[in-house]
């Protein structure tokens, strides 16, 4: 594992890796091949909302990342998760974009592959 990933793993896993946070921290994906009639969900409140301003989105936080962390805290997620996210925010503050420092095959791979999730 390249050093940058070790760094990231270390500060995240120190906080949360061994904690039983999963059930509270992540919505459970619809189970595959179940016996329900439908996998549809009711639309989220965010889908119903026409738009939100930057002022409202920040909700008093200094930036978007801290606004997202605050929402997680308000949603009752485990404190270990919040600590990890705060650590990520600090990491980015201090180091900037980690992809900018990628070199060689890793940089090429990241550039070539349009990651479908992020």
């Amino acid at each position: 594992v390249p050093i940058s990933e070790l760094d990231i793993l270390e500060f995240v896993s120190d906080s949360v890796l061994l904690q039983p946070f999963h059930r509270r921290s992540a919505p459970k994906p619809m189970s595959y091949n179940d016996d329900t009639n439908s996998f549809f969900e009711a639309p989220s409140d965010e889908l119903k909302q026409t738009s939100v301003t930057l002022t409202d989105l920040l909700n008093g936080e200094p930036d978007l990342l801290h606004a997202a962390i605050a929402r997680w805290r308000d949603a009752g997620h485990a404190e270990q998760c919040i600590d990890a996210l705060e650590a990520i925010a600090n990491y980015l503050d201090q180091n900037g974009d980690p992809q900018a420092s990628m070199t060689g095959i890793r940089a090429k791979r990241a550039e070539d592959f349009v990651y479908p999730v992020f």
Partner: protein
Amino acid sequence: MADDSLILGISGLFHDSAAALVRGRDVLAAASEERFTRKKADASFPTAAVKYCLKQMPRGTKLDGVVFYENPVLKMERMFSNMFSTMSHGARTYPQMLSTLHTMNTELHDQLLGIVKDPSRVHFTAHHRSHAASAFLPSPFERAAVLVVDGVGEWSTTTLWLGEGDTLTPLREIRFPNSLGLLYSAFTQYCGFRVNSGEYKLMGLAPFGRPLHVDAIYDNLIDVKPDGSFALNHKHFRYRTDLTTIAPSFASVVGGEPLSPDAPVTPHHMNLAASIQAVTTEVVHRLARTALDLTGCDTLCLAGGVALNCVSNGELVRNLPGLRDVWVQPASGDAGGALGAALELAISSPAREKRRVTLPGLRPGAPKSPEKIGRDGMRAALLGPEYSGRSLARALKSASLKYTELDEAEMQSQLARDLEDGLIIGHFNGRMEFGPRALGNRSILADPRPQEMLQRVNLKIKFREGWRPFAPMVLAEHCAEYFSAPHDSPYMLMVSYLDDRFRSDIALEDIKAQGWCNLMDLRRFPPSSELPAITHYDHSARLQTISPEGNPRIHGIMSRFHDSTGCPIILNTSFNVRGEPIVCSPGDAVRCFLNTHLDVLVLGNLHVRRSDQDKDVVATIGKVKFSAD
């Protein structure tokens, strides 16, 4: 022009960055960033597209607001959730995840505020809401069911809506990680094409195969309910935890090995393409039927990347009971999200409400209709930059190209003659198209009748795979003579089928029975004896209907060509070479002309013939290598 809020919409930082400028319901401008930066599917903040759109603002006006097509805080929350729920298997994705977080947190914030300064005038809307707005608000319908299907937004991957008047109401949702778009992308990758750009190639490959693996897909990869809702079997996918869509076990389900880019396509991969196309078509059909049932509508609007699957779209038109009419947003990918977000904000903007009651002579609640070309509010999707005659001439002179200036009637006649002579034309005229399809203004045009035309254009002009078919432009008034189940298709988003009278007697299965399995050899057995360059092996064609109001130049050329040859159809493909975005500027068009075997270049009313040029001017052909797309 409607006197309503002036809004700039922006999409980006994922793929297909774009900007759009609207005034009320009137779309003034829209363009993708890739066209300016010449980097295909450019995902960076669309600085050049924004600059272009802002230049199109009416004199003396100022922006009422800027809107980003998705909610970055929600997206961050999904990333957090994904990271924690997949820890620590997802470590490979962390650098990209952190990079995305950083970009959204700093660049997005700063760039948006750089445009309007005031944070209360910077807006965000949900990704799927932007798509839904792009599908419904410019559509010709007052009331319609709306279906959005793509890879993923913040959480949504599939949504069903009711569109009514100015409002959109979400009805149902399927959320990440269950995604029809990502399932299709997994097969795209497995068949050797690039995720998020090669999906249309997989669709083009499908007619060469047989859907032998449909049951394996339903049994192992996706559980689809009768209402079209679905869940994926995540043990065979890796997009949550790695820089790949598929897990090693994916191969055990579908058989064979994943193809590497540019490897020869095997019959097995053709069958996989046919199989995932069949599954996609079935799921979209069920979803659309549910959308009609829930809304009680007989009209349907589509958007999201999956709406670019014109095979599925065409199937809806032909076979969905209760569907009277369908409209597909021509920029159905993420670029169109910029337009949808802007339209909805402009229509719902408080600034507009204020103006409605303060402006004398404007009846409250009755905004003026936008300018219409054809039946919708998209201005024929010709929303990008156009260039002055002086700029066009300058581009030719700087390349030392000899040209002839023709008036409009002369140009149309000349180009009809060029087509009849078998010449291949790079046609650059007027405003650039918005969306992934070239619709005539940045198009390569050719006569579809000669047997060798498909390979000439594929191999000598586009430098792409020789098996890939081209789309036909057909004069709208003659469409029914050539194609079954004709449907108005101005944006090349519907597949239709060539009438039996024009099909050759040779069936694909018969050719395969003779031991054939090579895509290139297949071209010796054309599926149509009259129109081989635009007919696929299942006799399907990705149709574009041409009307005089949609594109008067192209309609004029085709009418003259038809008068002379009796053929109301020409071949149309995007004006670019493999791996590059469609040309935007006159300079791009000149470079493409010089680096390919195009016979004719048209810039507005300037006509350039390769055979008239000095040899040293056109000696660059073959010296430029084009990368895979």
